């Protein structure tokens, strides 16, 4: 049966037979880079379209319905529009930082893509500290936002950036702690090991209540970390025009926009990997027949299915809840999520030591 990993190994074989080892590495890096960039473009198109349709349906509207069948090419048309727009740099702005910030945002999302396991035996970079790497790199994204806000020389941008700084720094803690819950149970920081440990059932089913709590805390924290409503104080268009990207236009704005959606995809992919078993098909304990049938669905489909389910959940949050105020936001983190996830990690540790999970 054809699978992504099989195609990858065929390509590798062909390259190895044709070129010397150095060139094989170079070519494979180029191919990986091109694939990541095209995945970005496709994800941007799909997620923007999905968001607009989901929001429309939730608000009893029709959503985009003019370009292409049922408006499906609307986001492609928007991309063309953004491409031909002029990317302006305001006079009073710090030119270098202003122009670097959007690229930093997108580079951070690209780096986060590296350790994800998209399908069985298919990872760009299978490192043994994947989880640590992801939580370390994702905190760099705040720098791009601060950079954009500061360099714009605009009060709205700066306020948005400062809010976002406070927000990301604090929510990182509870996101990290809820990820830790899974790490404690599996005893590994490697994404593939974590997925393999869920072969007899995903952690969300095996882990009882503590993992449920960790999952909910994780969902809330990553919604905040990706700056999406109800935690979109960094943009808060009704208060701050557009927050940190007020001054951006054209393709530079599009890069921020794209980075936001790709970040949503990445955090959902991480959530799916940790709690819902990544590419691991739906297995129930030792029902081998059932498990075998589930194995026929390709692993990449499982991965993308779960990821998109989580993305839908996050979009659903966005269109259901009103935006929090900054003090409410920090209260939620420091008074509720952080204490809860600290107690929770104690519970999970006890559970792991006493082997209470399945």
């Amino acid at each position, binding site marked *: 049966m054809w699978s992504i990993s099989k195609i990858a190994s065929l390509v590798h074989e062909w390259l190895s037979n044709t070129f010397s080892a150095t060139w094989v590495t170079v070519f494979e890096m180029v191919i990986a880079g091109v694939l990541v960039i095209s995945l970005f473009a496709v994800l941007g198109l799909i997620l923007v379209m999905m968001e607009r349709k989901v929001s429309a349906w*939730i608000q*009893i509207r029709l959503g985009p319905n003019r370009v292409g069948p049922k408006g499906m090419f609307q986001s492609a048309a928007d991309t063309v529009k953004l491409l031909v727009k002029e990317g302006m740099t305001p006079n009073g702005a710090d030119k270098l930082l202003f122009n670097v910030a959007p690229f930093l945002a997108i580079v951070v999302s690209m780096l986060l893509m590296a350790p994800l396991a998209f399908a069985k035996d298919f990872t760009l970079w299978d490192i043994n500290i994947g989880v640590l790497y992801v939580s370390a790199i994702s905190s760099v994204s705040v720098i791009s936002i601060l950079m954009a806000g500061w360099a714009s020389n605009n009060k709205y941008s700066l306020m948005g950036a400062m809010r976002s700084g406070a927000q990301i720094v604090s929510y990182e803690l509870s996101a990290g702690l809820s990820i830790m819950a899974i790490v404690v149970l599996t005893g590994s920081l490697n994404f593939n090991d974590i997925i393999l440990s869920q072969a007899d059932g995903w952690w969300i089913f095996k882990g009882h209540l503590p993992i449920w709590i960790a999952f909910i805390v994780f969902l809330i924290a990553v919604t905040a970390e990706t700056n999406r409503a109800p935690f979109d104080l960094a943009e808060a268009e009704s208060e701050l025009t557009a927050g940190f990207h007020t001054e951006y236009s054209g393709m530079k704005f599009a890069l921020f926009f794209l980075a936001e959606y790709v970040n949503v995809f990445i955090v959902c992919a991480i959530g799916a990997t940790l709690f819902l078993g990544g590419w691991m098909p739906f297995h129930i304990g030792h029902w081998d027949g059932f498990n075998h049938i589930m194995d026929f669905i390709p692993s990449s489909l499982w991965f993308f299915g779960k990821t998109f389910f989580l993305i839908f959940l996050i979009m659903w949050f966005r269109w*259901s809840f009103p935006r929090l105020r900054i003090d409410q936001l920090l209260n939620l983190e420091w008074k509720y999520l952080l204490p809860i996830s600290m107690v929770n990690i104690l519970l999970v540790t006890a559970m792991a030591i006493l082997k209470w999970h399945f």
Partner: protein
Amino acid sequence: MYLVNYIKEVLSALRSLLIGMRRTLFYFTHHKEIITEQYPDNRATLKLADRFKGEVVMPHNENNEHRCTGCTACELACPNGTIKVITKFDITPEGKKKKAIDKLVYHLELCTMCNLCVYACPSDAIKMAQTFEHSVFDRNQLTKVLNFPDSKIMDGVE
């Protein structure tokens, strides 16, 4: 005790969030009743909300009569100086002078459709119409006279 309250608080917060999410999920899964009006396409069958406010008009009955007494309450109520009431004095059959409107001038380009004039009018002489295709090439056309030519005040409206 504190802890119990704390947990209660968290649970009730979660509960109310779930109630909200159930509502939006209901809308999401019941994609039947759509409030979007696809305007240029359905121009003939367009249905506007009752409270939609398009412009100020003065209704006249079939005898070309309106209810405006020329009291200028609407002019005073308008925050933008949109309405200008020009009054004149009619001679009643008994030979008495009576105040009446000559023209009620309405500057559509200044109007914010705030409805304050309609609230202020003591004799229900003006109301909000649902028209909204107001574009014209000449700005002068936006200055309208609301009472029809040769119109009179209705009998019995003081």
